[in-house]
């Protein structure tokens, strides 16, 4: 299945300032869209706009050449979002959190234990998430991405709180996802070394 995410002439105004104007991109299966820019340049806002959570001043975001707003549910069923805040419940355990997520979106047919082991969180299953370090919590959020069977990954600063090994793992996982025909929108201010077709957008 091939999918396409594109946007044209996006303008976003927050308060008094115009974050971006006339911005456009096209992203096909197997490609990575890298959002670059300084702090406060609008990377997260653009990502929220793609996810349909911010209304734009002008422009349209298209999923398979149809406006996202006309097919919000289908589009949301095709994406998973790794946000700055993990969106996991601190009082629940890793397993309880992932079980809840599994009831929301289509799930990939993969072995949960293998995924947790690969992310190095297989020993933390029975602990409440609040007892985990920030980096470990981020790994749980990554597990949520890997378990979802969706083509589009939205990753907002995926390397935050991760150690060097974790950062390499994120790049490797992204590469594998793209190789399988997935697509990824990533906001990062670090050097990203991913072997794939990369489109850069500077904000």
């Amino acid at each position, binding site marked *: 299945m091939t999918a396409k995410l594109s946007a044209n002439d996006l303008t976003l105004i927050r308060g008094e300032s115009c974050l971006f104007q006339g911005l456009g991109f096209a992203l096909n299966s197997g490609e990575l869209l890298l959002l670059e820019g300084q702090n406060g340049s609008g990377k997260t806002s653009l990502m929220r706009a793609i996810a349909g959570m911010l209304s734009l001043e002008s422009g349209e975001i298209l999923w398979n050449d149809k406006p996202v707003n006309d097919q919000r*549910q289908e589009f949301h069923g095709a994406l998973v979002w790794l946000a700055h*805040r*993990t969106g996991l419940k601190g009082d629940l355990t890793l397993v309880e959190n992932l079980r809840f997520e599994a*009831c929301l979106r*289509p799930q990939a047919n993969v072995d949960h234990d293998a995924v947790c082991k690969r992310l190095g969180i297989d020993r933390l299953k029975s602990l409440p998430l609040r007892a985990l370090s920030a980096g470990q919590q981020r790994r749980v959020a990554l597990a949520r991405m890997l378990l979802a069977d969706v083509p589009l990954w939205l990753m907002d600063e995926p390397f935050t709180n991760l150690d060097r090994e974790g950062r390499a793992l994120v790049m490797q996982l992204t590469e594998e996802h793209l190789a399988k025909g997935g697509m990824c929108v990533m906001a990062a201010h670090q050097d990203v070394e991913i072997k794939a077709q990369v489109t850069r957008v500077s904000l």
Partner: protein
Amino acid sequence: MNTPTPQQPGIFFGLLAIARRDLLLAWKRPGDVLNPLFFFAMVCTLFPLAVGPSVEQLTFSGPGVLWVAALLATLLSLNTLFMSDHEDGSLDQLLVSPQPLPVLALGKTIAHWLISGLPLVLISPLLAMTYHMPSAVMGVLMLTLLLGTICLSLLGSIGAALTVGLHRGTALLSLLILPLAMPVLLLGANTVSLAAGNEVYATGIWALGAYAIASLSLAPYATAAALRISNE
């Protein structure tokens, strides 16, 4: 992708999943559940101490006091409905989930009612005894509170969704909800008073039922829209 048609879980899965998650969270944090219940019990037991033990006065004011206390206890519990989800980012995740947002909002509201509304209904006969309420009237009180707390949880979820991004939005939330909650209070308290005076009270129950059904069918959509607005 590796599978041609990924299986999307049905909407009742989403509804049950979020209700179950919220109940589990409440189970792990019992303090949040007990707060409104304590408030309700405290107001209802302190009132007779303050006004004196006259049977006539207590039977007269009982329905009103119980109902006002229940209303305020529900308002007190509402501001936490979406707050923790907003703080840890899981509200954002719900907004981008493929499940319809009104269904998820309804799931959260059902959990909220089970946690904070139903306990009020269940302990109300115990507190009604302080007001010398006959047991037949207690049944009416429980029925009106059952329907009334359902209305209040559903209407309150709209206000909670609108004020979720605001710090210290509790006062604003109460102000927003009070006009909508007023008919519930009037119907509930008056129905119980009528029942206590051996008069015809069925109309009030029907009206409360109609109000509950109207809120059940409209509030989830309003809550979903309010969540999208306040998360822009």
